[in-house]
């Protein structure tokens, strides 16, 4: 075959393949759309049926058992489960039992084929199943599919299945950051039951600067149990890892309490700017006006984030606004800028303009508006 013929054949093949792909798209896309529309209509029908079932409270079920095999029915149950509570949610739970949904979805989850079906099964179990599904969910915390693992952890957290706490924490070291943070979210559902397992995990792993430790620390912050504070203080003293220290300072700010105050204030004077910046934010969440002098110093920090966070924290504290106005007269240009930006975010610029326009403006209002207008003129 000569070169021209080869070229002709190649071009023909490329065009033929493109044509085939276009044909597939033109046929497959409408088919998918039609399938999605049918699914949406069935889901709406099921929502209407289930709503009538809940409203009638008769206990009689108008649906045949075959609906339990329909994904649209499961989607309708999940949607309803997310908006109702109390005894009405229990009525939906009765339907889940009556239609044997947990067992059927457990079988689907254990299947090796059809990842999409396995994932839908994991979601259904996470949202609808009771504790009888816990062993299945536990077994799949190490599933090959990360989304399945996330849903299993979520389901176990919703059920507050205690044996899962240790199993979830065991996964912290091997999971990606995204999956680890989803696992951490599911631990928050356990509330204070997860406090001591988290503390044990942190105590063991922080010396190795294990990547899961900051997530575990932040989870304690989300739970908000003040019993964690002494352990967190130990870790802050002991750890040399900046990420862990930053997470601890953030968490101490979040949990609060008298024991948290001094270490967070000390962190605001750290040599590491990341720790100073985090401490500046944490001091605001501690909400004590005695932190104002520390934050005022932070306005003149060499690092932008520290200045910004200090200014923002001041704007959230009683009398902190006064400090920001005073900082507009500072010799330090960066302190003036940080103060004016925080005042603007707090709505003070608009309020100052309004006061000036109505004849009630004070000198500090004029000063603020002047400063902002000069900055805008430079842009």
């Amino acid at each position, binding site marked *: 075959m000569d070169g021209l013929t080869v070229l002709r054949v190649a071009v023909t093949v490329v065009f033929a393949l493109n044509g085939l792909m276009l044909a597939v798209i033109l046929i497959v896309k409408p088919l998918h759309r039609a399938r999605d529309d049918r699914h949406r209509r069935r889901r709406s029908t099921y929502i209407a049926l289930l709503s009538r079932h809940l409203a*009638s409270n008769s206990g009689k079920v108008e649906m045949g058992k075959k609906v339990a095999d329909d994904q649209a029915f499961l989607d309708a149950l999940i949607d309803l489960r997310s908006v109702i509570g109390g005894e009405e949610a229990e009525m939906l739970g009765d339907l889940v039992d009556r239609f044997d949904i947990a067992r059927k979805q457990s079988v689907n989850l254990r299947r090796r084929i059809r990842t999409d079906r396995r994932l839908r099964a994991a979601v259904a179990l996470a949202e609808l199943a009771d504790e009888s599904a816990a062993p299945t969910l536990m077994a799949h915390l190490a599933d090959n599919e990360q989304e399945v693992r996330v849903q299993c952890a979520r389901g176990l957290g919703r059920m507050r299945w205690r044996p899962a706490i240790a199993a979830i924490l065991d996964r912290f070291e091997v999971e990606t950051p995204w999956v680890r943070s989803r696992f951490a979210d599911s631990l928050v559902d356990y509330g204070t039951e997860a406090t001591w397992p988290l503390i044990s995990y942190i105590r063991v792993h922080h010396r190795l600067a294990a990547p899961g430790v900051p997530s575990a620390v932040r989870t304690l912050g989300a739970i908000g149990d003040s019993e964690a504070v002494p352990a967190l203080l130990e870790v802050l003293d002991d750890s040399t890892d900046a990420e862990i220290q930053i997470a601890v300072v953030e968490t101490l700010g979040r949990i609060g309490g008298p024991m948290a105050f001094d270490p967070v204030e000390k962190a605001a004077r750290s040599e590491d700017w990341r720790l100073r910046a985090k401490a500046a934010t944490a001091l605001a969440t501690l909400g004590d006006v005695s932190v104002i002098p520390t934050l005022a110093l932070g306005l003149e920090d060499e690092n932008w984030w520290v200045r910004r966070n200090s200014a923002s924290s001041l704007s959230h504290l009683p009398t902190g606004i006064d400090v920001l106005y005073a900082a507009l007269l500072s010799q330090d240009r960066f302190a003036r800028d940080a103060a004016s930006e925080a005042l603007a975010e707090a709505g003070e610029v608009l309020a100052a303009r309004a006061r000036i326009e109505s004849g009630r403006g004070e000198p500090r209002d004029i000063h603020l508006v002047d400063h902002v207008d000069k900055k805008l003129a430079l842009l």
Partner: protein
Amino acid sequence: MKRILVADDSETVSMLVSTALANAGYSVTTVDNGMAAFSVGSEQDIDLAIIDQLMPGLLGMEVLEKWKSDGRDFPVIMLSSVNDETTIVDSLRMGAVDFVRKPFLVKELTARVSLALQRR
């Protein structure tokens, strides 16, 4: 028969609430966005409105504010999944007669509707 407007962009919530209210003997109109809610509330004879805080178009509080400016005085119950005290207080200050957080008991919402209508 009392007429109730249900405004929520979630089909699930709309259907759930409208079914329960219809079962309780009310006539229900449903819409799925803020602009439609405002139009129906302004132009039709409504005895009570249940509106979601977060909707496309106008937010629930914006709809409530516009109704109040237009002098519409039917009771409004705010529905929200936002668990924020400021939102609750703002809604009540703006004139909502009640605030129901999601997830909710449909029976309880129906009872609150009945109470709000009795008080009117």
